[in-house]
């Protein structure tokens, strides 16, 4: 039937029409109900609403529904909403509208399927919104109304927080729960980033139930009514700076708000020293936001709000760190009463006081916990936990918290393995015997369940420190004892104790205090070491004994008992009290066996015995011992018959006291030994006697002498000069005492050299004197020495020294003057006298034979300058230049003389260069000599010509003519002062005048001696010779050198014509002083003219 297409189309059309009916689609008719919608809030009932298409007024509406084909239920209502049960699958609804008059307008049938029903839960209701201002936290509480829904539905909640008067969204957060078919009250916390006091905060909530079995549309509920937490700015008198005294972690972001009274304004807000931008929250509230806060000081960081009208408010923010996890948590007990846990806190939180870190110790097995009082200033923290009965294992959790956070550390301990006992106290020592003591001590703790291991430290001055361990059962606050044996009698010991657990060692306790104790005395362990010596007279015997060592004496030795036995018969008995270490027994010529016993308060030692018999010895030799280290090495031959050993005896001498005998015993197989003694001193000679021991007595075998160390002799031997000759000295010296030698004397050293007593020269031996001679005398028997090959009448220093292997003694010095050698003296006088006489004779002969020559040379009647040695002196000087011969008498017609000032200049006067007078007279009219100061040209004219041109006007310098007269003996001319030139001009006024007036043009006289001036003024003889020829301008001319006078003459003025000196009359005192009346050695060497 369904294969026919026509039928198919018909059926589809019919279904379409039916569907349109079911959906209540009214088409065109007025008053028809339409838009039927059904919504359920609880899955049991649903609310159906509809619209009526006509706007005409209508009356009631009849609503009939049929569920599960049962009898329809109808009811009339004026509203357009009915609540009916939610159908299991579908329901048929018939809605009939009536007019006001009761006439039916329209009837519509609807079929409602379950999927057409919407599920929208009812809006939740907030039970409470509670603020926590201290933490800025809001707590929202609401009921989930779960009893209205099947068990196990998932519910989602959406909570919205709003802020400020304008209700600005702050956050919207979700919360999920499961409905349990009960009304559950849910709580949700939200921490605000802004203090809740700053402004009002609001909250509302809605939810969505995810019911999977429901086919219809599901939707969120409506928002709940808003709950508000009003800010302080809503309170009429609310003000302040918030939050107050908050603690935050480093790096947090914090908002501070300043709430003030109405009418005021916030001017600025600062965090620490820095101002922050204001955020306006309301008319009465402003805020700042601090980002990434850094750690604050201990007293926190101040936030201050400055308001108008000088208003100010503030708060403090504490910024720190959360607690660090404790390190090295360790728990132990010292007494089984308290468990002490220690740890290191790690990083400091930077928070103190009430904000500081709190510790609590929780024992999780017992569930007990304690709060720990810790000192924040200490690095290590300690907390005590009581020991619980019957609990050995403890599981500790150390909880650490501060306002920022919390952490914990845990530790599981077996208490028996963590025992560190208290320090032992009340240590006492009691004595049992001379070798044992009993120690007692107390430990404040209950150690009944463990064994203790205690360690006793034993120390004394004469032995090494020892540790003695003793294990013992523990007790409850008990006293513990231990016995120490094998101690030494009469010894001062120090004891101290520490303990630990014996089975599970953890730590030693601290040491107890030290207790000192001296053990009791015991009889001496052995008899003293003894020796005896017979007196030189042989009638008495001195017995010596050595003191026992502390370890042997076992107490304080009070006396020694000395007995002398002869065949068991006691001849003598003595008790010698301390500190004597010898005694004497009168034996006569008898011998006996001597017994010595040491006694202390505890008893007597075993006796030490020695026989007094001394066997005779023959040919006892004395050897030298060798020093070895700080002892003396001695050796001897083996004596087979010495059956009971050897004894080396020596004696210590100290100053004026008799020497104390010491000895050392050696077994019979010994042949050498190094004798050591603390009493040995370097430089002291010790004499040892080696005795051999036989059963019948002791026999002296040999003597040995030696030094532990040889030193240089203390002094040199005294010596004297026995005899002195001109070339030898005989000295003698004395023997030196042994104690001055300080060693075995090896010789003498005599040093001598020339030397004066009291001279400042260093000592002979120190001087390194090359003349030092040394004589070494190694023959000790020689006591004199003759020193030969000395010089006569010479002082010698003699130094004599003695020397040992240790070195030289200080020197002993003498000064000796050898006797004079008379023959040499005579020779020394005669030879010079003879030589002098001989020379005198030779000189006389020579002088006599050469008298003429001498006279001619040194003292002619008329001195010939050419023969004058003195003048030859000048001549020789000028020999290099013929034109400069000073007093050459050759005819000379020089035209000019060139005068140079400097001595170094070579003589310039040469005949070939002399210029004519006319030429020479060409000088500056002003008479300036500046041009010629150093180089003056003096013009000369031939006599005749000179005569003609003589007498120039006096005022013309060029006509100046002068002759300088110089004492022939004068080796130099005093300098003529320039200002004296005018005087020179008027020189020749009276007396003889030269017949030739030389036109010495441009003559410049720079200096003249007063004697010359004087001679100028006199009217004495004037030489007629041309003075220009007296060229004194030689480099070595005294005049030229010292007076710088180019024209200064040297030698006697002489007449050119006569070539003779014209001497002035001797009696004419006004005339120029004579240069000299003749030559003599004396005059030759004199400079002064007057002389």
């Amino acid at each position, binding site marked *: 039937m369904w294969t026919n297409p026509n039928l198919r189309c018909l059926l589809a059309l019919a279904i379409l029409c039916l569907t349109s009916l079911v959906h209540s689609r009214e088409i065109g008719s007025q008053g028809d109900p339409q838009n039927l919608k059904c919504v359920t809030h609880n899955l049991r009932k649903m609310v159906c609403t509809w619209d009526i298409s006509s706007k005409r007024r209508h009356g009631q509406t009849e609503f009939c529904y049929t569920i599960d084909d049962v009898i329809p239920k109808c009811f009339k209502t004026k509203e357009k909403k009915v609540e009916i049960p939610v159908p299991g699958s579908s329901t048929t609804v018939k809605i009939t509208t009536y007019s006001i008059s009761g006439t039916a307008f329209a009837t519509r049938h609807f079929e409602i399927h379950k999927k057409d029903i919407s599920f929208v839960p009812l809006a939740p209701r907030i039970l409470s919104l509670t603020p926590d201002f201290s933490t800025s936290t809001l707590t929202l509480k609401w009921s989930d109304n779960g009893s209205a829904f099947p068990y196990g539905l998932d519910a989602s909640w959406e909570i919205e927080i709003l802020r400020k008067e304008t209700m600005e969204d702050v956050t919207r957060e979700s919360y999920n729960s499961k409905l349990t078919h009960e009304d559950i009250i849910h709580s949700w916390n939200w921490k605000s980033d802004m203090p809740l006091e700053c402004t009002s905060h609001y909250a509302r909530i809605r939810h969505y139930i995810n019911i999977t079995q429901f086919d219809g549309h599901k939707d969120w509920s409506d928002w709940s009514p808003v709950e508000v937490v009003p800010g302080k700015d809503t309170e009429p008198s609310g003000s302040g700076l918030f939050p107050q005294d908050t603690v935050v972690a480093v790096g947090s972001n914090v908002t501070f708000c300043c709430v003030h009274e109405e009418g005021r304004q916030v001017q600025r807000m600062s965090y620490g020293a820095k101002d922050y931008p204001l955020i306006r929250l309301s008319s009465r509230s402003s805020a700042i936001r601090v980002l990434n806060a850094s750690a604050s000081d*201990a*007293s926190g960081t*101040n936030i201050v709000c400055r308001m108008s009208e000088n208003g100010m408010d503030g708060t403090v923010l504490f910024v720190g760190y959360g607690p660090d996890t404790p390190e090295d948590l360790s728990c132990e007990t010292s007494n089984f009463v308290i468990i002490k846990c220690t740890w290191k806190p790690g990083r400091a939180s930077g928070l103190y006081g009430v904000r500081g870190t709190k510790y609590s110790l929780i024992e999780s097995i017992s569930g007990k916990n304690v709060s720990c009082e810790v000192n924040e*200033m200490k690095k290590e923290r300690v907390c005590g936990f009581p020991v619980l009965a019957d609990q050995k294992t403890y599981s500790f959790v150390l909880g650490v918290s501060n306002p920022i956070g919390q952490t914990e550390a845990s530790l599981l301990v077996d208490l028996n393995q963590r025992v560190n006992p208290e320090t032992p106290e009340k240590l006492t020592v009691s004595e049992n015997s001379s070798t044992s003591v009993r120690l007692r001590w107390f430990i404040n703790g209950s150690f009944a369940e463990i064994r203790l291991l205690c360690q006793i430290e034993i120390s004394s001055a004469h032995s090494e420190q020892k540790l003695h361990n003793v294990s013992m059962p523990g007790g409850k606050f008990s006293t513990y004892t231990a016995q120490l044996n094998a101690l030494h009698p009469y010894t001062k010991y120090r004891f101290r104790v520490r303990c630990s657990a014996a089975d599970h060692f953890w730590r030693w306790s601290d040491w107890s205090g030290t207790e000192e104790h001296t053990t009791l005395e015991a009889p001496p362990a052995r008899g003293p070491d003894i020796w005896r010596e017979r007196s030189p007279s042989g009638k008495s015997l001195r017995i010596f004994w050595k003191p026992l060592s502390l370890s042997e004496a076992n107490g304080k030795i009070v006396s020694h008992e000395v007995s002398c036995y002869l065949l068991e018969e006691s001849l003598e008995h003595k008790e010698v009290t301390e500190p004597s270490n010898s005694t004497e027994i009168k034996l006569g010529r008898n011998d006996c066996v001597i017994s010595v016993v040491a006694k202390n308060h505890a008893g007597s030692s075993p006796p030490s015995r020695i026989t007094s018999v001394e066997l005779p010895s023959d040919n006892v030799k004395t050897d030298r011992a060798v020093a070895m280290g700080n002892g003396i090495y001695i050796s001897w031959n083996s004596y087979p018959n010495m059956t009971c050993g050897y004894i080396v005896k020596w004696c210590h001498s100290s100053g004026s006291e008799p020497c104390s005998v010491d000895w050392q015993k050696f077994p019979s197989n010994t042949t050498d030994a190094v004798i050591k003694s603390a009493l040995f001193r370097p430089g002291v000679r010790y004499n040892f006697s080696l005795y051999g021991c036989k059963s019948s007595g002791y026999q002296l075998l040999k003597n040995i002498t030696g030094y532990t160390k040889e030193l240089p002799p203390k002094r040199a031997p005294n010596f004297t000069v026995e005899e002195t000759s001109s070339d030898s000295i005989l000295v003698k010296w004395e023997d030196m005492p042994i104690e001055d030698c300080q060693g075995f004397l090896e010789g003498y050293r005599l040093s001598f050299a020339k030397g004066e007593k009291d001279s400042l020269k260093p000592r002979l031996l120190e001087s390194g004197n090359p003349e030092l001679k040394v004589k070494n005398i190694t023959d000790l028997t020689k006591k004199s020495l003759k020193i030969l090959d000395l010089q006569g009448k010479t002082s010698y220093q003699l130094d004599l020294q003695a020397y040992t292997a240790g070195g030289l003694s200080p020197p002993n010095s003498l000064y000796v003057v050898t006797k004079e050698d008379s023959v040499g003296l005579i020779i020394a006088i005669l030879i010079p006298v003879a030589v002098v006489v001989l020379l005198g004779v030779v000189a006389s002969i020579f002088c006599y034979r050469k008298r003429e020559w001498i006279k001619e040379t040194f003292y002619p009647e008329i001195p010939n300058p050419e023969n004058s040695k003195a003048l030859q002196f000048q001549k020789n000087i000028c020999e290099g230049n013929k034109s400069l011969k000073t007093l050459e008498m050759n005819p000379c017609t020089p035209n000019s003389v060139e005068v140079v000032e400097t001595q170094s200049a070579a003589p310039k006067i040469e005949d070939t260069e002399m210029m004519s007078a006319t030429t020479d007279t060409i000088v500056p009219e002003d008479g300036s000599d500046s041009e010629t100061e150093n180089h003056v040209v003096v013009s000369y004219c031939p006599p005749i010509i000179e005569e003609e041109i003589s007498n120039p006007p006096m005022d013309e310098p060029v006509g100046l003519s002068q002759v300088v007269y110089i004492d022939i003996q004068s080796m130099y001319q005093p300098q003529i002062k320039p200002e004296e030139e005018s005087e020179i001009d008027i020189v020749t006024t009276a007396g003889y005048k030269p017949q030739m007036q030389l036109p010495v043009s441009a003559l410049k006289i720079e200096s003249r001696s007063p004697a010359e001036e004087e001679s100028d003024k006199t009217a004495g003889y004037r030489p007629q010779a041309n003075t220009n020829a007296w060229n004194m301008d030689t480099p070595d001319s005294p005049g030229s050198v010292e007076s710088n006078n180019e024209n200064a003459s040297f030698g006697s003025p002489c007449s050119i014509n006569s070539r003779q000196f014209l001497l002035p009359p001797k009696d004419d005192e006004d005339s120029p002083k004579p240069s000299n009346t003749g030559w003599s050695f004396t005059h030759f060497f004199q400079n002064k003219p007057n002389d």
Partner: protein
Amino acid sequence: MWQCHRAPRGDGRRGSPSRGAGEGRGTGGTHGAVGGTYGLTDVGLSPPGVVPFVALLLLQRRPVAGRALLGTGSACPTNGLCRANVQEQTRRQVALLNATAQDLFSLYLKCQGEPFSSESDRLCTPSGIFFPAFHVNRTTERKEVMVAMYKLFAFLNASLGNITRDQEELNPTAKELLDRLHNTTKTTRGLISNLTCLLCKHYNIFQVDVSYGESSKGKSAFKKKQQGCQVLRKYVQVIAQAARVLLPHLSPA
């Protein structure tokens, strides 16, 4: 100058300060108070006794008025009251407080953090706090001066106790500040003892009405800091005046 905070040390805190009036524990000073580390040993009243401010002080948040009994009984002790040098010692104690007040105040400001140091004028204006009147000058009768002094130092002793307690909480590492506060408190206590002695001996006064400031206990940290700052600032001003006024009255006749 001063270092406010120091590295924590192992010795911890020493002693305890006298508690402030607001705490109800009064000054609790003994007559044998000593001048702390300054070596001023003062024994105003020879036998041990208690300045019984405590009897009249209650824990209140507003200024407390009370009558301080200077002696243990209803009259002054008749013998062994004062030692010979009590006047000189009193003068030296006031001088010492005057000499150390500014340093104490400066250190206090430094330890409170900014802006206390930079804005102390605004933050520490003592206008809002109680401070006993001290209207005396050099011409004021000596008896009145002594009574005013007593009131002043009784107040200061209590306030210093409060400040010390607050700083031990806020600044436990500021050892120098705490030491100075302790020493100042001790000196103040000794001074009260000496004033007690002088009032009794010379004027037979054994009861003085005293007022104490508001306790800072329970206040915010900032308020504690500010209150201490205000008290110390006023203290600096008044102690200088006290030293000027007290000097002629205590100078040897």
